[in-house]
């Protein structure tokens, strides 16, 4: 879609563990951790879209929140435009927050219901001192118009709007500060079918107009395919496959990617029955040994997959895949871990 301008965002070895217990006292005795993100690496080029897909509990939302600096990583590095976000002080981070914005899944719970659309969208403009009192309204109206909302919505409360209009307010709020990078967390999941297409078109138009870079998080593969330049598939906190969208959808490599694609229902009654992937995503507190997908994997290689963690390999078509069926040169020579 867009030309390569070098990586805007570069993530390496990103890990996030959450404690299981609530307060510090419980945590003293319960040292179990929810391993939400377990070593994620990827980069996004300026002006492009990376689609991030996976089932619920795969860690895709946590990854988005880590990039937006809404939560601190346990370890790993997030570099944005060459700057390590982890090294920034509060003051510098605020400047960064203007450049990185987020659109949330549920427009009804991510908007303050006691504020009008105008107040919601003007808040980031005021916080970042982007306009004085005179220019505020002009800037506000521009942001609303970019999201396809006319001036008459300024004084409406969220409950007076439809789901699609509320999501447009969420988009206007993100765009109000002229960001470069927008994390879209399931932006159309809560919307009706006829409204989904409107919002997806709007987001693609805005990308063309302002040269935005998107991280597009979703579980709907058809939607992701439609908007993304590259697609990453997550499973239990790890990226199992990442590739150009054409490559990933035409030649999926990881058994999990194949299973996800086979499960997508097609709007055609004559299509062959879908293949069903059995089982559920295991608990991220006790992820399975070896390859975390092996208990559900239809192509498992037995003890190798059970005992040894697969390493990432880059294939000829530039797909990066993490599966023992695609062994890395170094991995084959390593002695298996945990073998008695």
């Amino acid at each position: 879609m867009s030309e390569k301008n070098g990586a805007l965002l570069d993530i390496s070895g990103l890990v996030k563990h959450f404690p299981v217990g609530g307060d510090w006292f419980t945590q003293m005795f319960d040292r179990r951790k929810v391993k939400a993100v377990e070593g994620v690496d990827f980069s996004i080029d300026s002006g492009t879209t990376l689609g991030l897909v996976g089932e619920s509990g795969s860690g895709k939302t946590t990854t988005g929140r880590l990039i937006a600096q809404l939560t601190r990583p346990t370890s790993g590095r997030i570099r944005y435009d060459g700057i390590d976000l982890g090294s920034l002080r509060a003051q510098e981070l605020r400047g960064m927050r203007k450049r990185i914005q987020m659109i949330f899944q549920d427009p009804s719970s991510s908007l303050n219901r006691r504020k009008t659309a105008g107040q919601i969208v003007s808040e980031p403009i005021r916080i970042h001192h982007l306009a004085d009192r005179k220019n505020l309204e002009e800037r506000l109206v521009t942001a609303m118009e970019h999201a396809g909302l006319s001036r008459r919505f300024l004084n409406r409360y969220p409950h007076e709007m439809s789901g699609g209009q509320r999501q447009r307010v969420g988009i206007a709020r993100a765009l109000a500060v002229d960001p470069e990078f927008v994390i879209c967390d399931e932006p159309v999941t809560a919307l009706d079918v006829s409204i989904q297409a409107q919002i997806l078109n709007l987001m693609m138009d805005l990308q063309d107009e302002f040269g935005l870079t998107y991280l597009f998080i979703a579980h709907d593969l058809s939607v992701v395919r439609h908007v993304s330049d590259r697609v990453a598939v997550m499973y239990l906190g790890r990226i199992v496959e990442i590739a150009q969208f054409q490559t990933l959808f035409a030649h999926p490599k990881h058994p999990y990617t194949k299973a996800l694609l086979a499960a997508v229902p097609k709007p055609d009654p004559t299509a062959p029955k879908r293949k069903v992937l059995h089982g559920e995503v295991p608990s991220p507190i006790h992820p399975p040994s070896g390859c975390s997908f092996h208990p559900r994997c239809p192509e498992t290689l037995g003890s190798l997959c059970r005992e040894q963690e697969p390493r990432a390999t880059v294939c000829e078509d530039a797909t990066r895949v993490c599966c023992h069926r695609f062994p890395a040169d170094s991995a084959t020579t390593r002695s298996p871990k945990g073998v008695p």
Partner: protein
Amino acid sequence: MSVRLLEIENLVTHFHTEDGVVKAVDGNSLYVDDRETLGIVGESGSGKTVTALSAMRLIQNPGRIKSGSIRFRGKELLTKTEKEMRVIRGKSIAMVFQDSLSSLNPTLTIGRQIGRVLKAHTDLSKREIRDRSVSLLECVGIPEPQKRATNYPHEFSGGMRQRALIAMAISCDPALLILDEPTTALDVTIEAQVFELVDELMSQYGMGTVLITHDLAVVANVCQRVIIMYAGRIVEQAHAGPLYKRPLHPYTRGLLQSIPRLSDELQERLFSIPGEVPDLIGLPAGCHFAPRCGYAEERCWHVDPPLEEVAADRFAACLRVSEIDDV
């Protein structure tokens, strides 16, 4: 020969709210036979859930079934007493609701909750009820059913809760199973598992199924017949094959065109239906879809389009259907 299970005729269900009368269902007719799956498709506010709740006589104040007829196996349900309806609900017609967490009682174990349904509708002994609850959980594919029956709803995953609800719904071998958005909150992989289960149960028990959803792709995979609803009215009704091959109503066409598909060649702009779903209070006369319809002409704004048979077993409510179809 198939048996007609449910027949709804000219059903009108209105809600009398402070802001005005919400015409949630406005003169709809439909039927369901045994061994068939009927899909009712519509966006939020189209009246699909209210249609199902009306059939179960579960409409609560300020809602009211104003007129029409709902017959189950030929017997009128609208004249039955609440006591008689309680026997029918759960035993003859069972429903699975969208939100599995709020349809289960958080303070009772899954086994107890299935047991309650059995206790209400059968005269099994306590022991038999316990055994049957466990075998039902096994039947819907829950591993270690003996142990899982003693779990509480919060200990189940979303997919497992939905399975438990289905187990509860089929516990008394209902003739008709109504599934209201059973997989909306679930991942595609789990959704595929749930429908695989429904498919198995249907061929095993021969029940009729109504699937209420907004997802046309799911319907294509599961249903034989499809009803499309818009703003309280049925706008199109057909067998799945012809409907997807050649949709007649402009709304159905728009819906099918606006779904992103895995087979799309390019990342072009999606077709989108302009405008928003209308407010059901104070709907004007004429076709409810006219304000969003590319084919609308003067008379569409004044004349209510009747649901007419346009071809064998194909119904559409559009004044211009014959002209549009030629294009």
